[in-house]
C-alpha cells in the first residue's frame, strides 16, 4: 500500500520537499543543541521544562482525540464516521510521532534514552508515559493499516482486530491521563496539583484534537475528491462543542477554587498568568487572548445555525485551536513553574532556535500525516470509495 505515497502531483511533491526543508533546517539547529547543550533554549533554573514539553503535552491530547471518531464508530456503530475513522487513527499516529520527537529533543542526554527501558522504574510516571505512548502508536499502526488493507482487498479484517480496536479506545484515554499524572502528582506545583487536571486534559484534548482533524480533513477534501459527508462534519462539530464547554467549565472550577479559598499558593500561578506578578506580565496578553478566543469559539459553535454553517466552521475551529493551544501549549507549563518555589519570578520565553527545532518536529508529524493520508485517499480512489 505504501506505493500510493510515491505517486502524486507536483504539488504533492512540492509540499513534501517543503516539509523536508524545514526538517533539515530544524535538524541543523538541533545539532547545535546537541553540541552546546540546552543553553540554546530559553529554559532556565526556574522554568526547567519549556516549549518542547508543552508541545508534547498538547500533542498527546491530539493523539488521544482520534478516539472521538473511533469510539462512536465502533462502540455505537455510528456509520457516518466510516470514512473519517481511518483519518482519526492516522492523525493519532502522526501526533504520537511528534510527541516522541518532542521528548527526544527535550532531554539533555538523548544518547542514553534507552536507559528508560534498560533500567525500568515502575514508580516513575515518565516510564509509564513511555509505555502507553509507544503502545498507542503500535495499536494505531496495526488498526489503521489492517482496516485499510481490508478496504482495498474487500475482505473483512480478522475477528481479533475488533479487540485490538477496543483496546485502542480505552488506551487513548490512558495516554492523556498518564500524561496529566506526570504533572498532577508533583507535590509543590500548585497549578498542576489538582485532581481535575487529567479531566481537564481530556476535555481540552477532545475539543482541540477533533478540531484539528476536521481542519485537516477540510483541506484534504479541497485537494482530493475525498468527502466524509456533511453529517460527519456536523456530528463531530457537536462533539467538539460539548468538549469545549466542559473544558472551559473545568478551567473556571480551578479559578473559583483558587480565588475563593484565597490560598496564596493556589492563586499565584493564575495571578501571574492573567495579571502578572512583581511587574512580570509576559503571559498576560496571551492568556486574555486565549480566554477571549475560548468564549468566541463557544459563541460560534453553540448556536446550531452558526455551527452547521460550513463556511464559518473552519474559522470557529481555528479560533478554538488557538485558544486551547495557548492554554495548554504555553500557559500550563509556564504557569506551573512561575512563580518559583520561593515566590520569585523568572520569566521564560522560547528562543528562536528552540522554535526552529519545534517547527522541525511539527514538520515531521505533518510529513507522516501527509504520507498516511495520501495512502488512505489513494486506496479509496482505487476502490471508488472516496
Amino acid at each position, binding site marked *: 500500500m505504501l506505493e500510493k505515497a510515491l505517486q502524486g502531483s507536483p504539488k504533492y511533491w512540492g509540499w513534501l520537499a517543503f516539509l523536508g526543508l524545514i526538517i533539515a533546517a530544524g535538524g541543523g539547529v538541533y545539532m547545535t543543541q546537541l553540541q552546546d547543550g540546552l*543553553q540554546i533554549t530559553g529554559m532556565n533554573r526556574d522554568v526547567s521544562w519549556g516549549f518542547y514539553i508543552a508541545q508534547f503535552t498538547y500533542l498527546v491530547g491530539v493523539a488521544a482525540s482520534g478516539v472521538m471518531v473511533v469510539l462512536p464508530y465502533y462502540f455505537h456503530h455510528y456509520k457516518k464516521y466510516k470514512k473519517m475513522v481511518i483519518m482519526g487513527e492516522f492523525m493519532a499516529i502522526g501526533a504520537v510521532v511528534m510527541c516522541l520527537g518532542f521528548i527526544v529533543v527535550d532531554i539533555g542526554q538523548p544518547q542514553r534514552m534507552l536507559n528508560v527501558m534498560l533500567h525500568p522504574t515502575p514508580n516513575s510516571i515518565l516510564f509509564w508515559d513511555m509505555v502507553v505512548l509507544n503502545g498507542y502508536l503500535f495499536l494505531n499502526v496495526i488498526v489503521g493499516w489492517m482496516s485499510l488493507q481490508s478496504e482495498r482487498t474487500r475482505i473483512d479484517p480478522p475477528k481479533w482486530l475488533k479487540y485490538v480496536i477496543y483496546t485502542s479506545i480505552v488506551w487513548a484515554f490512558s495516554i492523556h491521563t498518564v500524561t496529566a499524572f506526570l504533572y498532577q502528582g508533583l507535590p509543590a506545583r500548585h497549578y498542576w496539583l489538582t485532581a481535575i487536571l487529567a479531566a481537564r486534559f481530556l476535555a481540552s484534548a477532545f475539543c482541540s484534537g477533533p478540531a484539528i482533524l476536521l481542519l485537516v480533513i477540510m483541506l484534504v477534501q479541497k485537494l482530493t475528491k475525498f468527502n466524509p459527508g456533511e453529517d460527519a462534519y456536523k456530528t463531530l462539530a457537536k462533539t467538539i462543542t460539548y468538549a469545549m464547554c466542559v473544558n472551559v467549565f473545568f478551567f473556571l472550577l480551578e479559578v473559583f477554587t483558587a480565588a475563593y479559598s484565597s490560598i496564596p499558593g493556589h492563586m499565584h500561578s493564575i495571578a501571574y498568568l492573567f495579571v502578572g506578578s512583581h511587574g512580570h506580565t509576559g503571559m498576560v496578553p496571551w492568556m486574555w487572548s486565549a480566554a477571549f478566543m475560548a468564549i468566541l469559539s463557544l459563541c460560534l459553535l453553540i448556536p446550531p445555525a452558526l455551527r452547521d454553517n460550513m463556511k464559518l466552521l473552519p474559522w470557529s475551529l481555528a479560533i478554538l485551536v488557538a485558544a486551547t493551544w495557548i492554554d495548554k501549549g504555553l500557559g500550563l507549563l509556564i504557569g*506551573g513553574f512561575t512563580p518559583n518555589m520561593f515566590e520569585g519570578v523568572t520569566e521564560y520565553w522560547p528562543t528562536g532556535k528552540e522554535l526552529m527545532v519545534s517547527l522541525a518536529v511539527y514538520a515531521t508529524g505533518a510529513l507522516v500525516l501527509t504520507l498516511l493520508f495520501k495512502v488512505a485517499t489513494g486506496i479509496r480512489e482505487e476502490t471508488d470509495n472516496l
Partner: protein
Amino acid sequence: MGRTLPIEDPLIRMQRDLKKAKAADPAKVRWIMVIDQAKCAGCQACTVACVAENKLPPGVVYRPVIDEELGTYPSVRRRFLPRPCMQCDNPPCVGVCPVHATTKNEQGVTVIDYNRCIGCRYCLSACPYGARTSDFGEWYTAKTADAPGVLVGKTGAAQGYEENPAAEYGKEWAARSRRDSPIGNARKCHFCLHRLAVGMLPACVTTCIGRATFFGDRNDPDALVRELLGSPRIHRLKEEMGTKPAVYYLG
C-alpha cells in the same frame, strides 16, 4: 596562657563530631545540616565556595542564598535563606526518575549517577525546594575576551579550570566537555560527600563567616547538631509536603 577564645569555635566541635561519626557504623550515620538564619549575614560565601568546590558552570548552583525582604517601609528588614538540598527522608525527586539515576545513599544523602541520568529534568519539577538544577552546558569562559600579552595564559587557565572534572561523589568523572556528562544532567547539592569521605566538613560549612551552618550526625546524641535540634527556634521548610527534610533552620 589559658584559652584564646572565650568559647570553642563550632568548627572545631563539628570537626570532632565528624571524626566520631566516621568511626561509627556507616549504616547508623544520618547527616543533617542546621542553618541559623539569625547568624547568616547574607554574604553568599557558601554559594561561591560550593561553586568553586564542585566546579559549577553558569546557571548551576547548589546552594543559593535567597534574600527575603520583610515588612514595609520604614519598618523593613532582610532575612537570608541559604538553600542547600534538603536531603529529604521522603524525597519526591527520587521516585519520579525514569531511569533510577537518583537514589538515597546509606547516610540519607540523595545522590545522582551522572552516567545514567538522561537529563529529562522530571526531578527538577518534582523538588518542592528548587534544589536541583540542570547543567545546560554553559561556560564562564565562553565569552571571555582573550588579550594575549596582557593576560598571558589567564583565559587558558580559566578554561582548564572549567574543564577539570569535579571530585563530586568521590568518583573519577571524565573532564567536563561538550556533549558529555555532567552537561545535560541534573545536578544538586550532595553535602560534599567527597569531602566527608576524607574527613573534611562540607565546603559551605567551613567557609561560613558567621558560623551559621552546622553539620553532623543526627544519630550521635553528643553531636553539636543534636544540641541545636532542641532549640525552640528549630523548623524545616515546607513540612506540610511530608518530605521530612534533613536540613533544619533556626528561624
